[in-house]
Structures are given as structure tokens and as C-alpha cells.
């Protein structure tokens, strides 16, 4: 059975509806005390983690070296690190591991963005914005 998730509206322009999920992150023995908001973005080929979230679960940016230039988004180019290890993502009773990209921008407005290389690899997503919700059907062959 797919999981039905309602879109969310946020301040300033509530008519814009955002496909957002809540998830837990786990890396080695560290996890965050609460779930975090994550935007589901089919236009993103990489999944992104906020630099302060990455730091909180154990990634020291100084040890990651200098961020690499080369990423492009609708907002322009950015510098980023690709994390050397996978992070476990827990959501709605399912788990998958993701190699996140951490963008060198503390002003990023999303704690996490799930792109084509994460949730879209592990689940079928059916966006029904005209109905106000989307559905996530996790793959049964791997879950």
C-alpha cells in the first residue's frame, strides 16, 4: 500500500504547495533527536543535506577538505562536498542509505532535499498535486 502524504503550504506564498516528508537520519551511533523536514525534489539529481545537519551527525567539514566547485542549480553554481560515507534514512517504517551532497551554504532553507539518487531509487512516487497529496510506494524487492 502506498503511503499518502499531504502537500504543505509555507509562509509568504501559501498557494505554493511543497512535497515534503519527515525523516530520521542515522550515521554510525549518532542520530538527531527529532525527524527533519525534507523536500522531495524530482528535479534534483543529487540529494542534499544542510551543512549544519551534516555536522551534527558527525561530519567535520574541516576534515572533508575544501568543497568542490562544479554543481549547478536553478539558483546558480555552488560549492559542495560529497560525503565519503552513506547515511541511513528512516521514513515511514522504511530504511535506505544515501550518499548526500552537502552544499557549502548555511543559508540553505531546507534541512534536506531528496533527489533522484535517493528516494526515487527506493520508491515509486506518484505526485497528485491537483488532489493535494502525493503517494510513496516503497519497492518491495529491496524493502
Amino acid at each position: 500500500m502506498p503511503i499518502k502524504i499531504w502537500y504543505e503550504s509555507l509562509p509568504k506564498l501559501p498557494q505554493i504547495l511543497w512535497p515534503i516528508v519527515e525523516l530520521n537520519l542515522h550515521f554510525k551511533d549518532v542520530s538527531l533527536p527529532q525527524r527533519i523536514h525534507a523536500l522531495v525534489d524530482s528535479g534534483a539529481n543529487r540529494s542534499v543535506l544542510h551543512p549544519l545537519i551534516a555536522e551534527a551527525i558527525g561530519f567535520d567539514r574541516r576534515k572533508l577538505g575544501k568543497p568542490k566547485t562544479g554543481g549547478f542549480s536553478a539558483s546558480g553554481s555552488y560549492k559542495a562536498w560529497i560525503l565519503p560515507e552513506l547515511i541511513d534514512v528512516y521514513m515511514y517504517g522504511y530504511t535506505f542509505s544515501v550518499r548526500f551532497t552537502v552544499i557549502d551554504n548555511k543559508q540553505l532553507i531546507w534541512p534536506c532535499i531528496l533527489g533522484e539518487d535517493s528516494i526515487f531509487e527506493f520508491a515509486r512516487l506518484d505526485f497528485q498535486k491537483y488532489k493535494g497529496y502525493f503517494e510513496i510506494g516503497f519497492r518491495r524487492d529491496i524493502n
Partner: protein
Amino acid sequence: MGVVNLTKTLKGKTGWVSISPDHKRVIAQARTFRGLLEKLKKMGNPNGFIMIAARDFSNYIG
């Protein structure tokens, strides 16, 4: 159930916030992520979720 409207809950809020599971209440708020984690720890890490209350989400183009 229907579209989740966070505009009222987040009204006047900026920075890192923790929201109750029913999306209706701000549990804690801080300017920094580390500050929010410290506040939540003092509260016994109640159930909820963390997000960023941006001044304007409409400028984001994914």
C-alpha cells in the same frame, strides 16, 4: 486531513524551529541549529520535527 498549512504556525518565526507532530505548535525555536538542539535536550527531546522557518520560501526554485 488535507493540505498541511504551516503558514499560521510559522507566522513571525525565523531560524530553526521544532514543530509538534500535529503541525500546530512551535515546540522550540533558535537562531542556530545547535541552539535548537540544546533547547530540545533541556525539554527532554519531545516528539516533533525540525525545519527551517525561512523569511520567504517562494524564492526557492528546485
